[in-house]
Protein backbone atom coordinates (compact mmCIF):
# COMPACT_ATOMS: atom_id res chain seq x y z
CA UNK A 1 0.00 0.00 0.00
CA UNK A 2 1.22 3.49 -0.84
CA UNK A 3 2.43 5.37 2.23
CA UNK A 4 0.87 8.79 2.79
CA UNK A 5 3.51 11.50 3.31
CA UNK A 6 3.37 13.62 6.48
CA UNK A 7 0.84 16.20 5.35
CA UNK A 8 0.10 18.37 8.37
CA UNK A 9 0.78 21.96 7.27
CA UNK A 10 0.55 21.07 3.58
CA UNK A 11 -2.20 22.87 1.65
CA UNK A 12 -5.19 20.56 1.24
CA UNK A 13 -5.17 21.20 -2.52
CA UNK A 14 -1.59 19.89 -2.72
CA UNK A 15 -2.61 16.79 -0.78
CA UNK A 16 -5.40 16.17 -3.28
CA UNK A 17 -2.86 16.54 -6.10
CA UNK A 18 -0.74 13.85 -4.43
CA UNK A 19 -3.78 11.60 -4.01
CA UNK A 20 -4.81 12.03 -7.64
CA UNK A 21 -1.37 10.96 -8.74
CA UNK A 22 -0.94 8.05 -6.34
CA UNK A 23 -4.36 6.60 -5.50
CA UNK A 24 -6.95 4.81 -7.63
CA UNK A 25 -10.53 6.01 -7.29
CA UNK A 26 -12.93 3.90 -5.24
CA UNK A 27 -16.55 3.78 -6.45
CA UNK A 28 -18.69 3.30 -3.37
CA UNK A 29 -21.98 1.41 -3.57
CA UNK A 30 -23.37 3.48 -0.70
CA UNK A 31 -25.83 6.29 -1.31
CA UNK A 32 -27.32 8.75 1.17
CA UNK A 33 -30.96 9.60 0.51
CA UNK A 34 -32.30 12.61 2.36
CA UNK A 35 -35.19 15.06 2.41
CA UNK A 36 -34.46 18.64 3.46
CA UNK A 37 -37.83 20.09 2.48
CA UNK A 38 -41.34 18.67 2.56
CA UNK A 39 -42.02 20.44 -0.73
CA UNK A 40 -39.13 18.86 -2.60
CA UNK A 41 -38.27 15.36 -3.72
CA UNK A 42 -35.64 13.22 -2.02
CA UNK A 43 -32.02 14.06 -2.77
CA UNK A 44 -29.34 11.43 -3.30
CA UNK A 45 -25.76 12.05 -2.27
CA UNK A 46 -23.16 10.11 -4.26
CA UNK A 47 -19.62 9.87 -2.81
CA UNK A 48 -16.86 10.94 -5.16
CA UNK A 49 -14.47 8.07 -6.03
CA UNK A 50 -11.30 10.14 -5.61
CA UNK A 51 -12.49 11.54 -2.31
CA UNK A 52 -13.35 8.03 -1.11
CA UNK A 53 -9.82 6.92 -1.99
CA UNK A 54 -8.46 9.73 0.20
CA UNK A 55 -10.75 8.74 3.07
CA UNK A 56 -9.72 5.09 2.95
CA UNK A 57 -6.05 5.98 2.61
CA UNK A 58 -5.89 8.26 5.66
CA UNK A 59 -3.61 11.18 6.45
CA UNK A 60 -5.07 13.43 3.74
CA UNK A 61 -8.45 14.85 4.76
CA UNK A 62 -8.95 17.32 7.63
CA UNK A 63 -11.37 16.54 10.48
CA UNK A 64 -14.95 17.26 9.44
CA UNK A 65 -15.26 19.80 12.26
CA UNK A 66 -12.96 22.08 10.24
CA UNK A 67 -15.66 22.40 7.58
CA UNK A 68 -18.20 23.22 10.26
CA UNK A 69 -15.98 26.03 11.52
CA UNK A 70 -15.65 27.45 8.00
CA UNK A 71 -19.41 27.14 7.51
CA UNK A 72 -19.94 29.18 10.68
CA UNK A 73 -17.68 31.91 9.31
CA UNK A 74 -19.49 31.86 5.99
CA UNK A 75 -22.86 32.18 7.68
CA UNK A 76 -21.89 35.55 9.16
CA UNK A 77 -23.74 38.43 7.45
CA UNK A 78 -20.51 40.36 6.88
CA UNK A 79 -18.66 37.39 5.32
CA UNK A 80 -16.62 38.34 2.28
CA UNK A 81 -13.84 35.75 2.25
CA UNK A 82 -12.41 33.00 4.42
CA UNK A 83 -9.79 34.17 6.89
CA UNK A 84 -9.43 30.81 8.63
CA UNK A 85 -8.69 28.68 5.57
CA UNK A 86 -5.52 27.60 7.35
CA UNK A 87 -7.71 25.25 9.42
CA UNK A 88 -8.03 23.05 6.33
CA UNK A 89 -4.29 22.86 5.89
CA UNK A 90 -2.78 23.02 9.36
CA UNK A 91 -5.12 20.80 11.36
CA UNK A 92 -3.78 17.27 11.81
CA UNK A 93 -5.28 15.12 9.00
CA UNK A 94 -7.45 12.24 10.14
CA UNK A 95 -6.44 8.60 9.98
CA UNK A 96 -7.77 6.05 7.51
CA UNK A 97 -11.51 5.44 7.73
CA UNK A 98 -13.60 2.43 6.84
CA UNK A 99 -16.04 2.98 4.00
CA UNK A 100 -18.88 3.24 6.52
CA UNK A 101 -16.99 5.82 8.60
CA UNK A 102 -16.26 7.76 5.42
CA UNK A 103 -19.97 7.90 4.59
CA UNK A 104 -20.68 9.20 8.08
CA UNK A 105 -18.01 11.88 7.61
CA UNK A 106 -19.45 12.80 4.22
CA UNK A 107 -22.95 13.15 5.63
CA UNK A 108 -21.63 15.61 8.22
CA UNK A 109 -19.68 17.48 5.56
CA UNK A 110 -22.05 17.62 2.58
CA UNK A 111 -25.61 17.15 3.89
CA UNK A 112 -27.45 20.06 5.51
CA UNK A 113 -26.93 20.03 9.28
CA UNK A 114 -30.68 20.36 9.76
CA UNK A 115 -31.02 16.93 8.16
CA UNK A 116 -28.31 14.86 9.82
CA UNK A 117 -28.67 16.34 13.30
CA UNK A 118 -32.38 15.49 13.47
CA UNK A 119 -32.76 12.79 10.85
CA UNK A 120 -34.87 10.50 13.07
CA UNK A 121 -36.91 13.15 14.86
CA UNK A 122 -40.41 14.19 13.88
CA UNK A 123 -43.02 12.29 11.92
CA UNK A 124 -40.80 11.25 9.03
CA UNK A 125 -37.34 9.80 8.76
CA UNK A 126 -35.36 12.41 6.84
CA UNK A 127 -32.29 10.42 5.87
CA UNK A 128 -31.30 6.85 5.06
CA UNK A 129 -28.09 5.21 3.91
CA UNK A 130 -28.63 2.52 1.29
CA UNK A 131 -26.86 0.63 -1.47
CA UNK A 132 -27.28 1.96 -5.01
CA UNK A 133 -29.09 -1.26 -5.98
CA UNK A 134 -31.89 -0.25 -3.63
CA UNK A 135 -32.65 2.92 -5.60
CA UNK A 136 -35.22 2.94 -8.42
CA UNK A 137 -33.77 1.43 -11.59
CA UNK A 138 -35.05 4.22 -13.82
CA UNK A 139 -35.45 7.94 -13.21
CA UNK A 140 -39.12 7.97 -14.07
CA UNK A 141 -41.05 10.40 -11.83
CA UNK A 142 -37.72 11.52 -10.37
CA UNK A 143 -39.28 14.76 -9.14
CA UNK A 144 -41.66 12.76 -6.94
CA UNK A 145 -39.20 10.45 -5.21
CA UNK A 146 -39.58 10.28 -1.43
CA UNK A 147 -38.13 8.06 1.28
CA UNK A 148 -40.45 5.06 1.72
CA UNK A 149 -41.38 5.34 5.40
CA UNK A 150 -43.21 1.97 5.38
CA UNK A 151 -40.15 0.19 4.05
CA UNK A 152 -38.01 1.65 6.82
CA UNK A 153 -40.52 0.69 9.50
CA UNK A 154 -40.50 -2.88 8.19
Amino acid at each position, binding site marked *: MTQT*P*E*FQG*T*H*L*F*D*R*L*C*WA*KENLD*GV*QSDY*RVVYEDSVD*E*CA*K*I*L*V*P*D*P*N*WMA*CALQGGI*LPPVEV*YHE*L*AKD*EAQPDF*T*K*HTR*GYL*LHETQPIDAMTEEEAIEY*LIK*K*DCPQAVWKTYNEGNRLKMVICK*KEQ*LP*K*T*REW*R*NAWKIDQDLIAA
Partner: protein
Amino acid sequence: MANGKIKADTLEHSTAGSLDTSYVVNGSAKAWLNLNGTGTIATRDSFNISSVTDTNTGKYAPVLTSAMGNTNYSLAGYNNKHSGESFYAGGGSGLGINAFVTTTASTYDLLSYSNAYVDSKYVYSQVFGDLA
Protein backbone atom coordinates in the same frame (compact mmCIF):
# COMPACT_ATOMS: atom_id res chain seq x y z
CA MET B 1 4.75 19.04 -0.30
CA ALA B 2 6.39 16.44 1.86
CA ASN B 3 8.15 14.79 -1.08
CA GLY B 4 9.83 17.93 -2.40
CA LYS B 5 9.19 21.63 -2.98
CA ILE B 6 10.52 24.18 -5.44
CA LYS B 7 9.86 27.79 -4.54
CA ALA B 8 10.03 30.25 -7.41
CA ASP B 9 8.25 33.44 -8.37
CA THR B 10 9.27 33.28 -12.02
CA LEU B 11 9.75 30.60 -14.65
CA GLU B 12 12.17 31.58 -17.43
CA HIS B 13 12.54 29.88 -20.80
CA SER B 14 15.85 30.10 -22.65
CA THR B 15 14.30 31.91 -25.61
CA ALA B 16 10.55 32.30 -25.12
CA GLY B 17 10.61 34.70 -22.16
CA SER B 18 9.45 34.38 -18.57
CA LEU B 19 6.27 33.84 -16.65
CA ASP B 20 5.30 34.63 -13.07
CA THR B 21 4.34 31.46 -11.24
CA SER B 22 1.37 33.40 -9.84
CA TYR B 23 -0.15 33.05 -13.34
CA VAL B 24 0.01 29.28 -12.93
CA VAL B 25 -1.34 29.28 -9.38
CA ASN B 26 -4.15 31.76 -10.04
CA GLY B 27 -5.05 30.55 -13.52
CA SER B 28 -5.26 26.81 -12.93
CA ALA B 29 -8.59 25.07 -12.50
CA LYS B 30 -9.22 24.37 -8.81
CA ALA B 31 -11.72 21.57 -9.45
CA TRP B 32 -13.22 19.64 -12.33
CA LEU B 33 -15.91 17.03 -12.79
CA ASN B 34 -16.98 14.55 -15.46
CA LEU B 35 -20.39 13.21 -14.44
CA ASN B 36 -22.87 10.72 -15.84
CA GLY B 37 -26.16 12.33 -14.79
CA THR B 38 -28.37 9.48 -15.96
CA GLY B 39 -29.58 6.40 -14.08
CA THR B 40 -27.95 6.19 -10.66
CA ILE B 41 -25.71 9.17 -11.29
CA ALA B 42 -21.97 8.48 -11.13
CA THR B 43 -18.75 10.46 -11.32
CA ARG B 44 -16.50 9.19 -14.12
CA ASP B 45 -13.58 11.23 -12.86
CA SER B 46 -12.97 14.43 -10.97
CA PHE B 47 -10.61 16.54 -8.93
CA ASN B 48 -11.29 18.31 -5.61
CA ILE B 49 -14.87 17.01 -5.39
CA SER B 50 -16.15 15.16 -2.29
CA SER B 51 -19.64 14.28 -3.49
CA VAL B 52 -22.31 15.05 -6.04
CA THR B 53 -25.94 15.18 -4.95
CA ASP B 54 -28.69 14.27 -7.39
CA THR B 55 -31.31 16.81 -6.31
CA ASN B 56 -33.93 16.33 -9.05
CA THR B 57 -34.27 15.74 -12.76
CA GLY B 58 -31.46 17.66 -14.44
CA LYS B 59 -30.17 19.12 -11.18
CA TYR B 60 -26.86 18.13 -9.61
CA ALA B 61 -24.98 19.65 -6.69
CA PRO B 62 -21.24 18.94 -6.46
CA VAL B 63 -19.35 19.81 -3.26
CA LEU B 64 -15.67 20.74 -3.07
CA THR B 65 -13.11 19.18 -0.75
CA SER B 66 -10.68 22.13 -0.65
CA ALA B 67 -12.94 25.16 -0.22
CA MET B 68 -12.75 28.31 -2.30
CA GLY B 69 -11.71 31.51 -0.53
CA ASN B 70 -14.93 33.35 -1.35
CA THR B 71 -18.09 32.92 -3.38
CA ASN B 72 -16.88 35.03 -6.31
CA TYR B 73 -15.29 32.11 -8.12
CA SER B 74 -16.03 31.16 -11.69
CA LEU B 75 -17.81 28.01 -12.79
CA ALA B 76 -17.73 26.78 -16.35
CA GLY B 77 -19.38 23.73 -17.79
CA TYR B 78 -21.04 21.96 -20.63
CA ASN B 79 -23.49 19.13 -21.06
CA ASN B 80 -25.30 17.28 -23.81
CA LYS B 81 -28.94 18.24 -23.71
CA HIS B 82 -30.33 14.73 -23.40
CA SER B 83 -29.61 11.34 -21.87
CA GLY B 84 -28.12 9.91 -25.09
CA GLU B 85 -24.62 9.71 -26.49
CA SER B 86 -24.36 12.46 -29.09
CA PHE B 87 -22.82 15.93 -29.07
CA TYR B 88 -23.83 16.92 -32.58
CA ALA B 89 -24.03 20.57 -33.59
CA GLY B 90 -26.29 22.43 -31.22
CA GLY B 91 -26.65 19.31 -29.11
CA GLY B 92 -24.93 20.71 -26.06
CA SER B 93 -25.48 23.56 -23.71
CA GLY B 94 -23.77 25.49 -20.96
CA LEU B 95 -24.60 24.69 -17.37
CA GLY B 96 -27.18 26.78 -15.63
CA ILE B 97 -25.74 27.68 -12.25
CA ASN B 98 -28.20 27.97 -9.44
CA ALA B 99 -28.02 31.28 -7.58
CA PHE B 100 -27.26 29.60 -4.25
CA VAL B 101 -23.48 29.24 -4.19
CA THR B 102 -21.23 28.72 -1.16
CA THR B 103 -17.45 28.35 -0.99
CA THR B 104 -17.84 24.58 -1.27
CA ALA B 105 -21.15 23.99 -3.03
CA SER B 106 -23.14 24.99 -6.09
CA THR B 107 -26.04 23.53 -8.05
CA TYR B 108 -26.09 22.89 -11.77
CA ASP B 109 -29.38 23.10 -13.67
CA LEU B 110 -29.48 21.32 -17.03
CA LEU B 111 -32.10 22.16 -19.62
CA SER B 112 -33.20 20.26 -22.73
CA TYR B 113 -34.08 21.61 -26.18
CA SER B 114 -37.56 22.33 -24.93
CA ASN B 115 -36.28 24.16 -21.84
CA ALA B 116 -37.40 21.35 -19.53
CA TYR B 117 -35.00 19.93 -16.98
CA VAL B 118 -33.21 16.92 -18.40
CA ASP B 119 -30.77 14.31 -17.10
CA SER B 120 -27.64 14.54 -19.21
CA LYS B 121 -25.32 11.64 -19.80
CA TYR B 122 -22.31 13.92 -20.12
CA VAL B 123 -21.86 16.77 -17.64
CA TYR B 124 -18.48 18.53 -17.59
CA SER B 125 -17.57 21.37 -15.27
CA GLN B 126 -14.56 23.31 -14.02
CA VAL B 127 -14.00 25.76 -11.17
CA PHE B 128 -11.59 28.70 -11.30
CA GLY B 129 -10.80 31.16 -8.55
CA ASP B 130 -8.95 31.56 -5.26
CA LEU B 131 -8.69 28.73 -2.76
CA ALA B 132 -9.22 29.23 0.96
